[in-house]
């Protein structure tokens, strides 16, 4: 039997996961700004309102704190909402409800209440949207016990992680780099689950481990190609979820290769890269042939400028240069 693998975009894969779960579970609903008739500012909710209607795809006023808190309340009451915060920059507006409520209600209720919600949000630099619509703020919630974080890099992972996130009984933050929305790839039809906390080796290698998140996985893969041409075999590991973090796979890979570079689209200082570098440096200490290196966004706001914002995104060239330094 011949099977042609279906190719769809990352955005379509996320929508497909949501739609399938919504059909399966009537206790789900989608809530956010401009997500209904307008279908989202990136068309990231295309078709949902048409299929599920006003009651299950809800437009809110521009009131992130109230709207998110309200969603937490609905989740506590047992529903499974997917709530969209348009840009991860706007997490700043929901910090109280996220950090002080959603993350703690299960623990502090002694396990009696659960908060099964998905917070869907866009990250990434591109399209010149400026300093308050371009940040990758996933290091912030990673810091808060009680929250899970997923960040897909491929359409298939995007579908699988979203399905897992909706079925999870905890608040899961789901980060999509908006510059990967149109990236196409094979995606299984029907139920497809990628468990949170399981890393994926996107490319096998033996000389150096490139650990990359979300869109940076593609930067790492590009760098791996360039390194291969120089005779260096790079392994690319995509943790896929930030919390829980699959430290075992990461440390195992670095123990094999002896070298690691962490590539993260967020600000480098105090970021996810620091967490992974510290974890790997500790866990693979005896196997390291070179220091674990980090590449992230520089420590300045994202300028609203085409040439300047390009500097905010780690490049394959930077990765290659770091790896070459390890051999230098």
């Amino acid at each position, binding site marked *: 039997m011949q099977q042609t693998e279906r190719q769809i975009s990352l955005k379509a894969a996320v929508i497909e996961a949501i739609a399938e779960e919504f059909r399966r579970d009537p*206790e789900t*609903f989608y809530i956010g700004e401009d997500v209904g008739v307008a279908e989202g500012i990136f068309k990231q909710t295309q078709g949902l309102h048409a299929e599920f209607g006003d*009651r*299950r795809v*809800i437009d*809110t*006023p521009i*009131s992130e*704190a*109230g*709207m*998110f*808190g*309200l*969603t*937490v*309340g*609905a*989740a*506590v*009451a*047992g*529903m499974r909402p997917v709530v969209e915060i348009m840009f991860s920059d706007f997490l700043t507006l929901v910090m*109280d*409800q996220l950090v*002080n*409520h959603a993350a*703690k*209600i*299960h*623990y*502090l*209720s*002694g*396990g*009696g*209440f*659960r*908060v*099964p919600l998905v917070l869907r949000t866009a990250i990434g630099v591109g399209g010149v949207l400026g300093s308050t619509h371009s940040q990758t703020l996933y290091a912030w919630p990673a810091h808060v*016990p*009680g929250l*899970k974080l997923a960040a897909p890099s491929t359409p298939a992972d995007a579908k699988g992680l979203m399905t897992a996130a909706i079925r*999870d*009984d*905890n608040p899961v933050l789901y980060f999509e780099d908006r510059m990967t929305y149109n990236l196409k790839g094979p995606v299984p039809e029907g139920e497809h689950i990628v468990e949170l906390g399981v890393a994926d080796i996107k490319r096998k290698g033996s000389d150096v481990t490139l650990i990359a998140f979300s869109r940076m996985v593609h930067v790492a893969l590009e760098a791996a190609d360039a390194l291969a041409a120089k005779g260096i075999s790079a392994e690319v590991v995509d943790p896929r979820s930030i919390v829980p973090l699959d430290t075992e796979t990461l440390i195992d890979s670095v123990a094999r290769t002896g070298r690691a570079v962490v590539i993260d689209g967020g600000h480098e200082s105090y970021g996810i890269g620091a967490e992974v570098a510290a974890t790997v440096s500790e866990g693979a200490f005896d196997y390291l042939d070179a220091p674990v290196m980090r590449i992230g966004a520089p420590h300045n706001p994202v300028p609203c400028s085409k040439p300047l914002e390009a500097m905010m995104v780690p490049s394959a060239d930077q990765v290659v240069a770091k790896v070459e330094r390890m051999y230098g």
Partner: protein
Amino acid sequence: MSPEDCVDLYRTMVRIRVFEETVRRYHIAGKAPGLVHLCTGQEAVPAGFISVLRPDDYITIYHRGHGHCIAKGSSLEALLGELLHRRGGVNLGRAGEPHLCDPATNNIGSTGIVGGSVPLAAGAALAAQLRGTDQVSVSFFGDGVLNQGVMFEVLNMAAIWSLPVVFVCEDNRYGEFTESATVTAGERYQDRGAVFGIPSDTLDGMDVLAVREAAEQAVGRARRGEGPSFLVFETYRFTGHHVSDQQEYKDSEEMRAWEARDPIPNYARWLADEGHVDDVAIARIHAEIDDEVEAAAKVADSMPHPGPEDLGTHVFA
């Protein structure tokens, strides 16, 4: 209301007051550490309002929330156990007062963040609306919440979507140690709900029957799908913001005037005037409740503290 119901309302208020006195005693003895916020003087609002709710209705409360838990039917042992930080507490002794909640009574609970629980109540109302049940959600909060942006955002959404939620502001005149009138602009607090077209009113929060009547109307509206209400109950805490607060910022004249409006003896007089109780019955009620709370306290105080094995459970479901 039947005479029994009328007397039950009285029992609830007395139970709350005796419970609070017990908590104070344990706090002073060092067994309920941390800041302890009592609702002594404000009993009429939780007792009167929650008396019209069903067990499956949701409530959210705030740091002065022991009374609401009791009125909603929480076990006194588990409640007190929580305040004594015991493993048998309603939240395993980890939430303490600021996070008191009780899944068994659909009490989504309290919060340490001013205004933090208000959107949760609206969310539970949204869930009821989406599921098509006729559950109602009630958010109890203090006057300090009036200046929180999230309160305003949620009022707007509740109005737009006609959510089955009642916003109950317990205006006890002080936000911590600050007189609320000095930090809250505008003539009437209720206008903050009225601007969104939400039926809003200001009522006597020391009169348990007035509270109950207003609750019946507002909860009835919500249950019939007619949308939210915003009620301000004027009340007064007879104690400090927390137990150790000496209340130097309050005027003694003002305190005396409000103490004369104590909801419990006033309601006892009304019950007597109506012929529902006599002095003997009142004395018996007090004695029974004293025994009931004392028995609960004994159980709570015998519960063990949580141990290291209780630390890391329930971070994730």
